[in-house]
């Protein structure tokens, strides 16, 4: 079958554009529609607002994207984020310097990632199961650490700036998000570890026979996911000024959605950091636009779901049609 499809794909040029840019076109259409129908949507302040709202989602999703790139899953990231957020708040309230507290919280994220990575590669438990379990453990640890109550109190101004400050007119969170997204994309497309991670996800057997230590790159991806989750947890605490035991739980669905939408951007079926950012942006825009338009909360979820199905369907349908 390879040959017929082979010669075929060389010539598909035309609707390839729809496949590669379908999601971005859908995004543009949503933006255009909201700009016309919702007053104030397209204003500079609101654009910054949207970017600030999606910053945390984009950062945590980039971590999950790394897992998808090596062909693994991470179900633990929301709980790891909540745990890190609680730890950083707890330690600061206990009198520790915010910087040291953040480092400890980040190491907890790394520890979860490395642990999951070792279980997946060396013991051979599927990542779905490993991270489901490690996520449950993280959830338990949160309650052990917080006794189930939120940490409220006075956090030092220097720490809060991380979540609430501005760099010129740009919120610090937006700035951090761009740094993370660009760093992730550069790592994937321009560095050796990035290429090895892609190869690991594309075909682990072939990658290994080409001399790639696939175990190492799976561990790396899960570690980056843990790190991104912990970082998000810290930023969340800095933004809210408090830590809630389930603060980051909402990132599960939206994180998956961002990364999966991202897989339809640029290269069909391959997770990529830029695509994930577009995915997060899409979700942020829908949330923001519909809130401004005064739609009830539940309508946002329904709309988000439909848009995910539509944009993935569009690209899958194109792929399928070209193969028939």
């Amino acid at each position: 079958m390879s040959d017929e499809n082979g010669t075929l794909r060389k010539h598909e040029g035309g609707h390839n554009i729809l496949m590669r840019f379908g999601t971005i076109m859908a995004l543009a259409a949503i933006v255009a529609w909201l700009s016309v129908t919702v007053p104030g949507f397209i204003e500079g302040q609101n654009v910054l607002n949207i970017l600030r709202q999606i910053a945390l989602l984009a950062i945590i999703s980039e971590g999950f994207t790394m897992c998808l790139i090596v062909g693994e899953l991470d179900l633990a990231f929301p709980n790891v984020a909540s745990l890190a957020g609680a730890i950083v708040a707890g330690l600061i309230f206990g009198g520790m310097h915010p910087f040291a507290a953040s480092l400890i919280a980040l190491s907890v994220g790394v520890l979860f990632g490395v642990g999951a990575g070792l279980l997946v590669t060396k013991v051979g438990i599927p990542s779905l199961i490993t991270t489901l379990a490690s996520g449950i453990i993280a959830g338990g640890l949160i309650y052990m650490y917080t006794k189930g109550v939120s940490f409220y109190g006075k956090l030092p101004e220097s720490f809060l700036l991380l979540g609430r400050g501005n760099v010129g007119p740009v919120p610090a969170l937006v700035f951090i998000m761009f740094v993370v997204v660009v760093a992730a994309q550069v790592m994937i497309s321009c560095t050796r570890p990035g290429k090895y991670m892609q190869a690991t996800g594309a075909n682990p057997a072939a990658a290994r026979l080409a001399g790639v230590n696939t175990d190492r790159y799976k561990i790396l991806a899960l570690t980056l996911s843990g790190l991104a989750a912990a970082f998000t947890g810290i930023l969340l605490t800095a933004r809210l000024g408090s830590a809630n035991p389930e603060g980051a739980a909402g990132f599960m669905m939206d994180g998956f959605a961002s990364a999966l939408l991202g897989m339809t951007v640029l290269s069909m079926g391959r997770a990529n950091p830029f695509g994930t950012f577009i995915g997060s942006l899409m979700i942020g825009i829908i949330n923001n636009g519909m809130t401004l338009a005064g739609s009830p909360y539940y309508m946002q979820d329904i709309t988000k779901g439909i848009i995910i199905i539509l944009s993935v369907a569009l690209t899958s349908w194109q792929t399928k049609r070209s193969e028939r």
Partner: protein
Amino acid sequence: MSVLEIRGLTKTFPGVTALEDVSLSAEAGEIHGLVGENGAGKSTLVKILAGVHRPSAGSFLIDGRERRFGSPKDASELVGVVHQERELVPHFTGWENLFLGLEPTYAGFLKKREMRATAMRFLETYGRGLDIDMGAPAHTLSSGQQEMLTIMKVLFRNPKIIIFDEPTAPLSIRECEILFALVRDLKQKGLAILYISHHLEEVLSLCDRISVLRNGRYVATVDAAATKEADLIRLMISRDMKEQYPKLPCRAGDIVFAAEGYASARDRLRDISFNIRSGEIVGFAGLVGAGRTELAEALFTGSSRDAGTVRLKGRDFLSHSPKDSIRQGMVMIPENRREHGLLTQMSVYENLILPQLEGLSSIGFLRWRAADRQVRSAVERLSIKVASPSQSVSTLSGGNQQKVSVGKWFGLPAALWIFDEPTQGIDVDAKRELYDIMGHLAQDGAAVWFISSDLRELLAIADRLYVMKDRKIVGECVPPFNPDGVLGMMMGEKTA
């Protein structure tokens, strides 16, 4: 009246015509061969008959009635296809696979006893002499048995026409014989059989008539009894083939790789002693399962070694992973290029630089210019046909895919090149190019380890041969080779 009559069948995909105005017919009780190079349109024709594709123009008649299949399921009652990829559910037993989709039920419950009994009876009638355990899960059967089970599954649907698409690719010589007997038996039972294979001798000995396709067009139908292999090749390719197996002259130098008394319990290998010199192509002959691939893989992947010494370039060869082996100068083009040799969804570019990334990056960042140079030189040196290196590997023909699988090692200081079945499933021209590639490597001083199940190419291309049987090396042959002697050793006769 012909069972199958194809009238002016044409299939166009956006931008390409895969099949153009093809007409041919097959009778009941006939084995009709279908040959052509990769891309000649064989698969497209099969897919139309099997209801996967719809024709753009033309039609086909089965039993005198024009048929239009909406889906493969529609087609399956009339046309059975034995694909290269076996379509069995691995954990289902033989009889569960046989009945897949046709299960008899009573009030929603499977009538298992009836299914089992019917399956046994069916095997008794159609597959006499076949050694298939219908009660065993499909994945526990050998690849030959799985293929036979697949054929039984297709036959069970009682089609008028049965199409074999490269059925012998995964089979050992003995299993091939069983398959041929079965195909002849089906012919006796009055089925029309369409038989597709790259192995022309097999087609010539098995088929009654043979139709040739070239570049999507029908070329001719010939009588197998009155046709020679060279005639078929001439019909398949546009120009005359001067030589099917070009052999470049090379001079053997020092010993590059040597194993002495190597054994590995995990891979069930023992008594392995052989060597390969620089500038030499050393062939490994043997039946499927003799341990040729297993030996190469065990050494390359650094599997456990229980006895013996292995030396590469005069140094002890110690490896725990492909990465170690590559570093010491051993590279491998694995047997199954789609599963093990390539990252099929990734680009030609990415595939070609993957093993070289260490040399092509500084502090972790890719040096694009050096990578571009590397890719360009590999594409030129192997004349890989690509529109652009950013093209996905899955869009290439088998031959070009194989070249990518070779080219990714260029630029590394490789001393020993292992080619495991490099010409499997690629067309005649691409095979010649591959022999040239191996020859050039040898001329440049590489040691080439060449595993193949195609004895003719092995005898023509190799400078020396080792024969494996039952996971041991049972003999070494030097030219002039005696084909019967080699075959005898492969089968386990005492002659040398």
